[in-house]
């Protein structure tokens, strides 16, 4: 049962789309990401998101949230992606806050305080230099100490981590064979060294080194020593799906921009939009958007209904959307010709946004490998019952 009605979703979409169309876009994104300050995104924007209730969309009521599903959040992310918003919405809301909401004890839910109000940004550090896209490879160790844990290890570049006030960090408890736990680590913790950098599209993040970062015992989310790999996997599936929404917004916009450009630009005495080859290319871009939209919708519904195939639907959505994004982004630049190569025009920034999103939390090929690995399991079963059920 979704927390939001279709009408409420429509309203959310309308207000988010209007906000970003009016107050964001490639130029604003460029100004923010190239700013010399440490953030690379808009603190004022973040405050507005809080005021508009967006930062609390998925949070529990107790944390000042409206308990929406991933679908509601996705409506926001899509609108943000369409105008290249640079704020770390997904790492903060889906991963950081998602981890606390889902795994935190009642006491630990206090970590969510200030998130809805835009006063606290959460981050997520899980991937490591040796993990690639694999989600079960954790070398960081949380060594038990007298009054808690000391965390030591390296974490790979993670979007938004540079600006997080509080980070959710994965580590193996006790030693290299220990269960993986998630720890709450303040951004200013001693021994935490962050190396900030821009991603290909300018959005910033950081890699990190933890050198005996001391946290108290109640920093371990859930307060037990259960292995959290499955929970992390689910969180990352949700984050991947959230990224799909961002991509959908960005690629829809990239298609529109390109269509509009070809309608105005003339060559050989004709509008470029009159060339059939270019028309069909635009059509294929549009179809890619429609396909992604459908796959994402199905996956979001599965996620919010907690359907048994929710994970598979998310993998499929990420694979389809990442492929679509590669085509749409690449053709967007191509059809703009030389102009598409310039830093001045918007289309190149959509290309870069889509390139980064493609890779975030696993690219198309990696997700298809996951789906194929599932085939392995099925291949062991006899084929006949499949036939009957098909």
């Amino acid at each position, binding site marked *: 049962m979704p927390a939001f009605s279709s009408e409420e979703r*429509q309203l959310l979409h309308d207000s988010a789309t209007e906000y970003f169309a009016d107050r964001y876009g490639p130029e604003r994104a460029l100004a923010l990401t190239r700013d010399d300050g440490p953030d690379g995104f808009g603190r004022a924007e973040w405050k507005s998101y809080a005021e508009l209730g967006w930062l609390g969309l998925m949070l529990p009521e107790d944390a000042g949230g409206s308990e929406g599903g991933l679908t509601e959040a996705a409506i926001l992310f899509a609108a943000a992606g369409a105008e290249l918003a640079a704020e770390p919405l997904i790492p903060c809301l889906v991963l950081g806050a998602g981890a606390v909401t889902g795994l935190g004890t009642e006491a630990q839910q206090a970590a969510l305080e200030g998130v809805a109000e835009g006063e606290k940004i959460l981050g997520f550090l899980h991937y490591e230099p040796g993990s690639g896209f694999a989600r079960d490879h954790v070398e960081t160790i949380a060594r038990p100490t007298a009054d808690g844990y000391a965390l030591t290890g390296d974490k790979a570049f993670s979007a938004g981590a540079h600006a997080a006030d509080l980070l959710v960090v994965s580590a193996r408890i006790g030693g290299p064979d220990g269960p993986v736990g998630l720890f709450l680590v303040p951004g200013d913790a001693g021994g935490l060294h962050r190396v900030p950098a821009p991603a290909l599209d300018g959005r910033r993040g950081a890699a990190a080194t933890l050198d005996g970062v001391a946290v108290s015992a109640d920093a371990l989310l859930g307060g037990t020593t259960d292995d959290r790999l499955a929970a992390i996997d689910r969180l990352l599936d949700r984050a991947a799906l959230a990224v799909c929404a961002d991509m959908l917004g960005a690629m829809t916009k990239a298609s529109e921009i390109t269509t509009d450009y070809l309608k105005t630009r003339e060559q050989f005495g004709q509008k470029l939009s009159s060339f059939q080859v270019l028309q069909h290319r635009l059509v294929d871009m549009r179809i890619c958007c*429609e396909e992604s939209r459908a796959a994402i919708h199905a996956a979001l519904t599965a996620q919010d209904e907690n359907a048994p195939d929710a994970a598979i639907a998310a993998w499929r959505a990420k*694979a389809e959307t990442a492929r679509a994004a590669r085509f749409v982004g690449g053709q967007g630049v191509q059809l703009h010709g030389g102009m598409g190569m310039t830093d001045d025009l918007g289309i190149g920034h959509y290309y870069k946004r889509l390139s980064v999103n493609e890779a975030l939390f696993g690219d198309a090929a990696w997700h298809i490998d996951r789906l194929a690995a599932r085939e392995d399991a099925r291949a062991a079963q006899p084929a006949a019952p499949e036939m009957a059920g098909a």
Partner: protein
Amino acid sequence: MFINAAAPRDPNLEKFRMEVREFCQTEIGPEMRRILDLGQHLPKDMHDGWLKALGRKGWLTGHWAKEHGGLGWTPEESAIFRDETDGAAAPWLAPFGVTMVGPVIYTFGTPEQKARHLPGIRKNDVWWCQGYSEPGSGSDLASLKTRAVRDGDDYVVNGQKIWTTLAHWADWIFCLVRTDPDAPKKQQGISFLLIDMKTPGITVRPLITLDLGHHLNEVFFEDVRVPAENLIGEENKGWDYAKFLLAHERVGVAEIGKFGRYLAQLRKLLGETREGGRPLSEDPGFRRRLAELEMNLSTLKAMHADALAQGTPGLISAAALKIRGSELQQAILQTMTDVLGRHGLAYQADALMAGWNGELVGPEESAGILAEHLHRRAATIYGGSSEIQRNIIAKGALGL
């Protein structure tokens, strides 16, 4: 909206789904089952028997409004019915009566035409075929040349139709004919006629396709006298009725329900085909292809469901479904063919005759799969080719 609002699900529909599934299991006897599983040519009497069984349930025209003798199914119910019958590899629901000429007749026909033709369509007492395409027309349907000249109470028809599916089984044909060759636009001056296939002057000639099967025909009209009462609607307005009908055809063409069955067949084939002594189902490359095909199907189904939820699917949805559906159909069949490449691609077309008992080379499903592969090369051509679909989106939706 970037993200669709989720449509609520109706739990009653699952009951209906089970009912259709059970019906298929019960009504398709073992003999017919085997013919269907092997992809053999289904004899007309068996095909007819199945359609009549559906007709008795009212399901053949379940999607018609109750006032026309249908069951007034919602789009979701219609989709479930298609999905289940396709998924059971039930015999083809030839659309010519139930989704093509039937709706045209109940929408534009006279009371007499309705009384005369609709019952036969609902019960499948009458087989229909479609006389649209002509040798020179290709994708440019409106360029048709078959002439109908009014002569007293009759039209006299001369010309030729082509690609006429099942004309060799059909009792009636609905035709687009040119009644005013001098109309300023080629879309004007076309009329919509119902013609009894037994009328003197009609010749049906088989048109053998790549699979060596006889599905299509050429139909020749030589001074064929058609009573004027068989004109649908107004003279010279036939193009309007044809457009109404084409919109119907475009959504139906995806045959998505079939694809799940193909994939099950592919899975079976992979399990039964060995390479280096090991089943191909263990091959990483085929596993990945299977996963991708399943992904594509799942996306196609999601697009289809979203299109249904919109009520009338938009131009883009309909065209995108046609384009991607036909591409996926060919991709699955190609993958099966790639498996059969391991057996040398022997093609015993004779094995498609029910009851054939010659000596088999390769898996027993080979001939059926390869025939389907060849036959469905047309999936990206018929019902508006992929190129035409893209033109439609370009002009109709992107304003290019």
